[in-house]
């Protein structure tokens, strides 16, 4: 494992832990103290510290150590957790995020915010008794193992035994300098310099090191830190670092409290600081060298005097338990996103090639060939689904950041807000999840800032003092819908309208539907906030939201009821790569519709057509002739077909020459040349090599309803909850 990928793993793990830490803290804030929550928070701080220690990231180690001390006191009930402390801990988590970002950007030598660090350390240390405070002040590296019974007596000293390589002096290194540095990490209680190996004057080589050192060393530093002192003289040297005896109990207790992921015994020992990676490798080397039967690693370590027997047996018990637990665990493997993308591209090509093979088999193949290509086609379809599902993640990944956002903003504004999340398990493409985060944050902030009123105003309006903000996600006819709704004041139509006139977006004479008025808020530079807060009101935000959603081939709409609240609904296609399509043709040109949006197909009967409406089973349905829309040349055939598509509650008919059938379409983006082309969202290559255009159904549906007063429930908002 090279260092960069190890650092990458550290960054990712730490980010996950910080999220867990935040969730735990918010959980305590909402539902009061619980053992699970505080343990999760403590474990997060502790694990980050341990991992950072492996990379000698002292700025993280020293900070998390202080956090850990505070959390440990809370955990053991010696310290109560109040709102102020929660805020300090949350802020500390944010600061740690910055440090982790720094490591990610390979800039761990730069302190992102020294004053903040000092302030947080000060605030944290206020919760600690005096003997821990000097630790904070000097911010020395500290032990990776908390001594559970707190007291560290004077007998607690490390024993370091050094037999350095004879060539150390020749390579220009002086053991004195390492020993001096060691003295900075703690106190050398007793130094025993061994001179027995000095040869007689005749054999004495002045450039060879003969001295050995036995050192009793009292320090707060952990083993890894001590070992790192001798990092440059490790080659050919024998270095043993024995932990303080009285700490063995602590190791034992600690091993039992480790988190649940399966680890080798050795790894456990490394994680708890009784053993360092170098020693482990050394012992593993011995294990493979040992002839005949291999003694178990634990025995080796004890024989080698690397760990105390008590520590090993505790680790072994732990390992046993882990094996039993492992069977019930979900198992994950982390895969590079680029590899997944490469796979999906290949599957895309396979789909196209498969379609070509099937077509060839149909035109001039035997029955056997046709059958086998059909089987291959079916398998390709399954592979496609499996490959695409690899990229799908639950939207909960995005949702989980909002409890904190809502908490912070509502605290800032002095509003009371409850956040309700549902449908977090709804899955969508990973790349979208990442791109969704910013727009959603804007919408959430807007809802809190403009939507939900202050406590006084709510009470005056006869509403409950606490406002509710809902995040809801669900699948809906081939797309995913995300609703952000609040029970606040709703959008002020009159004010938006006036603002629109003022900004020259609309004229005073224009008659606009409610929907059209609401849509104005997505125009650049539009903001109706009476006072500019630091959250919103600068008129940047909602236009960016729309831009982001457009880029994802999605759309955003607003519903509002004066005094009762507003809902912003985002709809996104499920995937960006391959879809099940339905092929139609107009004058020989092929078009593809997303199959999930196709509701039914029928013959178009001329008698039922009235201008741009067709009567379908007595219901009026607006329709578009693709022939007219795309100005396709050629005579209109005798019989035309009607394809009924539905998108987001709107039904529209598309009139085509003929229906071809279902296919799998690999979406190829259109070039910049077609950017302003309405009604087309992409292209695909058919089995015969022909290019087909993929129709942008949402866009078509809108262009139709813009021309018609339809029967869909536009002006009367539907219930906020949706069934599916």
């Amino acid at each position, binding site marked *: 494992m090279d260092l960069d990928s190890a650092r990458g793993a550290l960054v990712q793990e730490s980010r996950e832990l910080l999220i867990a830490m935040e969730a735990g803290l918010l959980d305590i804030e909402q539902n009061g103290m619980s053992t699970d929550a505080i343990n999760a928070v403590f474990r997060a701080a502790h694990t980050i510290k341990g991992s950072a220690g492996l990379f000698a990231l002292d700025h993280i180690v020293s900070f998390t150590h202080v956090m850990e001390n505070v959390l440990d006191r809370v955990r053991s009930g010696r310290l109560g957790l109040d709102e102020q402390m929660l805020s300090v801990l949350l802020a500390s988590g944010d600061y740690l995020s910055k440090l982790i970002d720094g490591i990610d950007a390979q800039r761990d030598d730069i302190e992102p915010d020294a004053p903040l660090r000092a302030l947080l350390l000060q605030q944290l240390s206020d919760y600690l008794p005096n003997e821990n405070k000097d630790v904070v002040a000097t911010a020395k590296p500290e032990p990776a193992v908390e001594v559970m019974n707190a007291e560290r007596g004077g007998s607690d000293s490390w024993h370091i035994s050094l037999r350095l390589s004879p060539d150390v002096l020749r390579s220009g290194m002086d053991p004195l300098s390492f020993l001096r540095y060691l003295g900075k990490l703690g106190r050398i209680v007793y130094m025993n*310099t061994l001179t027995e190996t000095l040869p007689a*004057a005749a054999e004495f080589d002045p450039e060879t090191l003969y001295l050995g050192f036995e050192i009793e060393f009292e320090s707060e530093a952990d083993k890894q830190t001590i070992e790192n002192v001798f990092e440059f003289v490790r080659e050919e040297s024998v270095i043993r670092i024995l932990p303080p005896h009285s700490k063995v109990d602590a190791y034992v207790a600690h091993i039992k409290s480790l988190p649940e992921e399966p680890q080798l015994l050795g790894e456990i020992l490394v994680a708890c600081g009784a053993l360092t990676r170098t020693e482990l490798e050394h012992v593993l080397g011995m294990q493979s060298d040992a002839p005949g039967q291999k003694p178990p690693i634990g025995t080796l370590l004890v024989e080698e005097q690397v760990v105390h027997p008590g520590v090993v047996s505790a680790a072994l018990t732990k390992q046993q338990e882990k094996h039993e637990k492992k069977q019930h665990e979900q198992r994950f493997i982390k895969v590079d996103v680029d590899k997944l993308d490469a796979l999906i591209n290949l599957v895309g090509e396979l789909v196209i090639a498969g379609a070509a093979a099937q077509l060839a088999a149909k035109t001039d193949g035997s029955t056997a060939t046709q059958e086998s290509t059909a089987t291959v086609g079916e398998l390709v379809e399954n592979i496609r689904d499996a490959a695409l599902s690899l990229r799908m993640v639950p939207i909960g990944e995005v949702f989980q950041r909002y409890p904190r956002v809502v908490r912070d903003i509502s605290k800032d504004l002095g509003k009371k807000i409850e956040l309700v999340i549902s449908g977090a398990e709804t899955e969508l493409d990973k790349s979208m999840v990442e791109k969704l985060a910013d727009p959603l944050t804007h919408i959430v902030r807007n809802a809190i800032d403009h939507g939900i009123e202050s406590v006084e105003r709510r009470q005056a309006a006869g509403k409950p003092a606490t406002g509710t903000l809902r995040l809801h996600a669900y699948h809906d006819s081939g797309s995913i819908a995300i609703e952000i709704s609040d029970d606040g004041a709703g959008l002020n139509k009159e004010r938006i309208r006036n603002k629109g006139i003022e900004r020259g977006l609309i004229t005073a004479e224009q008659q606009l539907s409610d929907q059209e008025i609401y849509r104005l808020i997505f125009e650049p530079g539009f903001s109706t906030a009476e006072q500019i807060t630091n959250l919103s009101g600068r008129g940047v935000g909602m236009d960016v939201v729309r831009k982001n959603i457009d880029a994802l081939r999605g759309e955003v709409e607003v519903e509002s009821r004066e005094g009762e609240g507003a809902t912003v609904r985002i709809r996104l296609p499920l995937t960006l790569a391959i879809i099940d399509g339905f092929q139609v043709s107009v004058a020989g040109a092929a078009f593809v519709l997303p199959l999930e949006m196709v509701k039914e197909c029928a013959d178009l009967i001329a008698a039922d057509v009235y201008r741009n409406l067709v009567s379908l089973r007595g219901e009026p349905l607006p329709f578009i002739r693709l022939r007219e829309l795309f100005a396709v040349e050629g005579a209109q055939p005798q019989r035309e077909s009607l394809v009924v598509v539905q998108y987001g509650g709107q039904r529209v008919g598309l009139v085509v020459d003929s229906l071809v059938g279902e296919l799998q379409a690999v979406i190829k983006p259109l070039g910049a040349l077609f950017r302003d082309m309405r009604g087309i969202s992409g292209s695909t290559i058919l089995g015969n090599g022909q290019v087909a255009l993929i129709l942008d159904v949402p866009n078509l549906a809108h262009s139709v309803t813009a021309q018609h007063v339809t029967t869909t429930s536009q002006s009367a908002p539907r219930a906020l909850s949706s069934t599916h």
Partner: protein
Amino acid sequence: MPIQLKRKGEFIRVHIEGGLNIYCASEAKEQLLQALAKGQDLEVDLSDLDELDTAGVQLMLMLKQEAQRCNKSCAFINHGPAVREVIDLLNLASALGDPVVIPA
């Protein structure tokens, strides 16, 4: 590392200036052993020695050992602060066995 010798019968006085370290260890070994060979009592004045590393410490120990082997005496005197720091760190005062005068 200039080493100066003064001889009074069997008493040899050696004065080392500058550094006693890995860079001059071979040379220093030769000179110190020669000095020891010249007489019965060797006194090494360290007052102007301002740098001492592990190689230098080993030389001092070696010289003591060699003197003992030949039934001669060897004493280090006037330890400067640099020397005292090293001897303290390595806890070699007793091994060297010289009275170290610690300035008030």
